[in-house]
């Protein structure tokens, strides 16, 4: 029982930062922006999120920027039979009164020419540019390199998974990735 309580507390704690970094404007809501940790010499990263248009007009994400990368683009994945192709696109529509997901395997904000690795459990500031709403600043939480959702790897936050979240990256308590 104590283990469950402990795990539940950790789970609750990990959920808090996610909601703290959601961003809402008059017309948009950007939920759970997240990214993945990168290796020291890795040149690219990706940012994912859910974007909701709160009005009848909808919007379109047309650009993004991040100081920690030389260039930021918007990309999509096309599954052509069994071949995965990733392509740059001009923008992503946010449907009126609807949501669009930027998630692994689909749309994502692609960070190119990373100036420093993205470190797990840090937050990166990304500026999104919308056709109607203009510039919107969000904070994306950096998850583990193999994370597949905004909450980290799997949704099973039992003890073993908690170890996986940290153990998988071997960061330990100090981020010993600096060279």
């Amino acid at each position, binding site marked *: 029982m104590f283990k469950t309580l402990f795990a539940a507390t950790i789970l609750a704690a990990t959920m808090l930062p996610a909601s703290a970094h959601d961003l809402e404007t008059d017309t948009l809501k950007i939920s759970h922006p997240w990214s993945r940790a990168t*290796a020291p010499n890795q040149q690219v990263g990706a940012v994912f999120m859910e974007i909701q248009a709160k009005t009848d007009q909808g919007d379109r994400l047309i650009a993004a920027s991040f100081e920690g990368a030389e260039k930021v683009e918007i990309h999509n994945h096309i599954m052509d039979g069994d071949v*995965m192709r990733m392509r740059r696109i001009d923008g992503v529509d946010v449907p009126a009164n609807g949501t669009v997901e930027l998630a692994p395997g689909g749309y994502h904000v692609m960070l190119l020419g990373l100036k420093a690795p993205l470190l797990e459990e840090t937050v990166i500031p990304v500026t999104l540019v919308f056709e109607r709403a203009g510039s919107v600043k969000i904070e994306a939480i950096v998850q583990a390199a193999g994370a597949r959702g905004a909450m980290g790897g799997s949704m099973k936050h039992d003890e073993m998974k908690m170890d996986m979240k940290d153990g998988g990256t071997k960061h330990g308590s100090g981020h010993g990735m600096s060279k």
Partner: protein
Amino acid sequence: MPYKSYIMGMNRKLHIAIVAFVAIVFAAGAWLNLSQDDPPENTAVGGMVVNVDIGGPFTLTDHTGSTFSSEELAGDYALVYFGYTFCPDICPTELGQIAEAIDLMGADGKRVRPVMITIDPERDTPEVLSEYVPLFHERLVGLTGSVAEVREVATNYRVFYKRFDDPSYTYYLMDHTSFVYLLAPTGEIASMFRYGTPPEDIAATIRQHMRSPARG
């Protein structure tokens, strides 16, 4: 004869022919059913049928810079993924799935070795891989080699990959198939998993093979 009066308008020969025909159809159906004693594939959730011509031994360079022969995998299972580090989405996802599948298996997972083979050896040198693989699993082995060496292995595994250059890009991307290959302790491919196969299904398929190794 008793039949004549029973079936109106039908003579005896025709009747016998119909009966014989039905009997043959019935017998054929029974035979077909009985001959399907092989279930279509390696049965487990997630695992796909594998053509025996795929796979084979290979020698590459690992992320420590040492020569790595596929023989070193003999006796263990292996989950092999072909990807590249300049891949911000699909490859981390699949490597994450592999890592989680192994960890889900607990003690049995120690018998499964995660392996990543790069399809982009020009950028993915051993040094680059050595900094990449620890992010996903402490036992993940990264393999690279010359362009020709990688091409040979990829061809044997029927991996499609193609460089995509766009003049307006300052970088290139790789289009590629995204399967995870399960190697049996014999070195043969026991199963394949499509992109996005959940870790639980991968673990279940491996467990199934561990229980009946003759199939692998």
